């Protein structure tokens, strides 16, 4: 096995000995490529661009509610089809109603048992031994992989 960093050092030396050739990153950059197609008078609205995930979604819900109200007022006789106006929130798949199968939190195999102390599901007694030897935080990590987040009191 060749010693580590030999190739890298060589590359760096090459770079410094031939400073006329721009680095790969500089060659790849398109910061200074001409972009005549852009409107020089356009100013972006920084505030509108800075919205985060949560605000966008709650705004969306609010808007949907307002739209429903408006249509109700305009045509009070026509019953509103719930999905006539699908929105990002309304097309979300519903929670599953099928019985949830239990899988071992450690091995992923079928889990007929649950450890009452940690709430972890396990496949057999050998996995139970593993769970017994687990620290509280490790057990929590395993639970959170299944989306069970215990409430910290």
């Amino acid at each position: 096995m060749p010693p580590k960093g030999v190739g890298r050092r060589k590359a760096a030396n090459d770079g410094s000995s031939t400073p006329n050739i721009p680095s790969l990153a500089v060659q790849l950059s398109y910061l200074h490529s001409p972009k005549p197609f852009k409107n020089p008078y356009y100013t972006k609205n920084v505030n509108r661009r800075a919205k985060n995930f949560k605000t966008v979604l709650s705004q969306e819900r609010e808007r949907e509610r307002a739209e429903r109200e408006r249509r109700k007022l305009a045509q009070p006789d026509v019953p509103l089809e719930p999905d006539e106006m699908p929105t990002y929130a309304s097309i979300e798949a519903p929670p599953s109603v099928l019985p949830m199968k239990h899988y071992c939190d450690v091995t992923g195999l079928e889990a007929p048992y649950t450890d009452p102390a940690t709430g972890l599901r396990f496949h057999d007694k050998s996995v139970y031994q593993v769970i017994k030897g687990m620290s509280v935080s490790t057990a929590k990590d395993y639970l959170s992989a299944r989306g069970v987040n215990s409430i910290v009191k």
Partner: protein
Amino acid sequence: MHSDDMQVDAAPNVVRVPIPALPSVPPPPDLYDKHRGTNIPIVIDNGSTTFRWGFADSEAPRFGPNAISKYKERKTNRPLLLFGEAIDVESGAKAQTRTAWEGDILLNFDALENALDYAFVNLGLDTPTVEHPVLMTERLSTPLHSRALTSELMFEQYSVPALSYCIDGLMSFYGNNKKPGTDNFEEDGLCISFNTASTAVMPILNGKGILSHAKRIPWGSLQSSEYLLKLIQLKYPNFPTRVTTTQSNWMLRNFCDVSTNYSMLLKSLKDPLKLRASETIIQFPFALQVAEEKTEEELARIAEKRKEQGRKLQELAAKTRMEKLLQKENDLQHLLELRESRGEDGKREWNNKLSAEGFDDDSQLDDTIKKLESGLKKARKKEAADGGDDPIEEPSFPLVDVPDVDLDEDGLKEKKKQKLIKAGYEARARARREKEREKEEKEREEKREEEEREADLGGWSRKLRQEQEVLMDRIKNRSRRKAALSDRKSAAAQARMKSIANLAADDRISKKKRKGAGEDMFGADDADWAIYRKINTTAASSDEEEDLIQLQLIEQKLLAHDPTFTAQHTHASITAQRSALLTAFKPVYEEGDVEGNTRIHLNTEKWRVCEAWFSPGIAGVDSAGVGEVIQNILSRFSDAEKARLVKNIFLTGSPSQFSGMIPRLHNTLRPLLPQDMPVNIVRAADPSLDAWKGMSLFSVTSEFEKTCFTKAEYEEYGPEKIRKWWGSNWNSSYL
């Protein structure tokens, strides 16, 4: 032990983590002349992983990861802007990566603007505005915020003449199902579009997407990859190198698959051998520790050198010792001569002589002489002892047996001293005899045992094994009790509380009674005191250590003499034993095995992370899976429509390429539908690029123009409105 097995039987499963290659410099931008003034649409598939763009008349789009990086190169301090794969060029660039998408939502419009800049530069545009209509994808029922800002960019920043939005899944369906030669599109089907951060199911009738019945499952390849990474981190909490998201993505794409029948698979993987056979081993890069190998000669030379040094030191020490001894002898000689000369001089002269030598009076001189004499005696003895261990001659105590009356004051003192020395001497002798006796007894015991063993090895071994068992049981019970005590509700803990209560109650009664009749019998039996040990949970029992020592002794004997008793039967290895299943799940390598310890064994995870598409609940996402959602959607159609939909179930998007996906969907859907209803599931010809290809196909039809929003309309209706057509979203649309 394990590592050896591994190299032999599992070598074909070992895959090395690829080392990312440096990005190459892309060819220069196209010449624009071919498209100048043509009005040929520009087609952009703005996917959350991949950004694809091109003129509608090209065969295939250009594409790259939908990410940009704006940063300053450290060496030259020049600001740079990189797009897509180019970001991998430097870690500084990677750290500044920005993506337009945040999970499933288009949110970062600076990044989108930079990506669009790249696309337009790459297409060679050199006109003051983008003079081509644009067909662009948007998310199914996209949040209007995303659309508004995208439209704003398109119309105000790039001044495109017309813009139309479509849904990528529907366009992929169109591209794969459109009959050539006609512009009419009347196909039916159920499109399952596997996106990066979500999966959309859209029914299509007469070529139109029925978006009122479409559903989105919040699970995609991004979540699967994250889930895989989490499982790896849980399985290998102390992995020497950091596993990156790029690597987990690579593992997902290359080694994971959708199981056609997950519960059957899990049942078979219960067998450790099958579990083992199913694994893929990911070998991470590692550096072997180069141990400095020394030749035999060198080692010998070093040993010789060390010995030589030791010898020299010893010689030196001996020499100084001799010198000291000589000095002492000289001193003694001198002092003795001095003492002998006492009588010769007058008292005054004598005193002067003494003080000149540094003595206060006669007694001090005597003391010093005595000290020197005894020191010399000791040193000589030691020197002699170096040769051999001479038995220490028994000191004589002549005064001990002399009656006190025959002695004067000094004699009495001397007698007392001798008595003490004698007692000490005798005690030492006793102890020595005791030791010898013990040794003899031990030897006798060993001999007896040996005889017993030789006479009946089976019986002897049985006896010892039984003892071992008893000890192990005791240790086990103790640890079990300890565990039980940590649980407040356990029987052991309750019993403990009861005894504490009893003790407290006893105390109170006994105090009263003690005044009258002393009836408290606690402590009459030594065993009574054990109760205190029983209720004390924290104190480590001394029995425990004793048991362990005893156990070790027995095991050593058995190991030495019983050929059937191997290292595997010892307590240590029994307790350290992992079940075959756990060993197969995560094979353990020895401490120093650098290669083995930079390996990740994937087995159940390979299917577990893909199973989440069908039941997101296993990864903590409270949502119906693909199968259930399809069932829900189908239930809202008549049987006739249902038949039309399931006849053409169409999969698109990269995750549809898992080889198990189509059979699994078939297995899931077949039982839900009437027997005589044919179910047909097809995958897009190119799940990654077909959306763009369908879009380019559509954008050259006459219908395309009708779907566009012009700049004038944008200014009139606002940035959120679109025209509703078969491939578009429904929200905020008008007919």
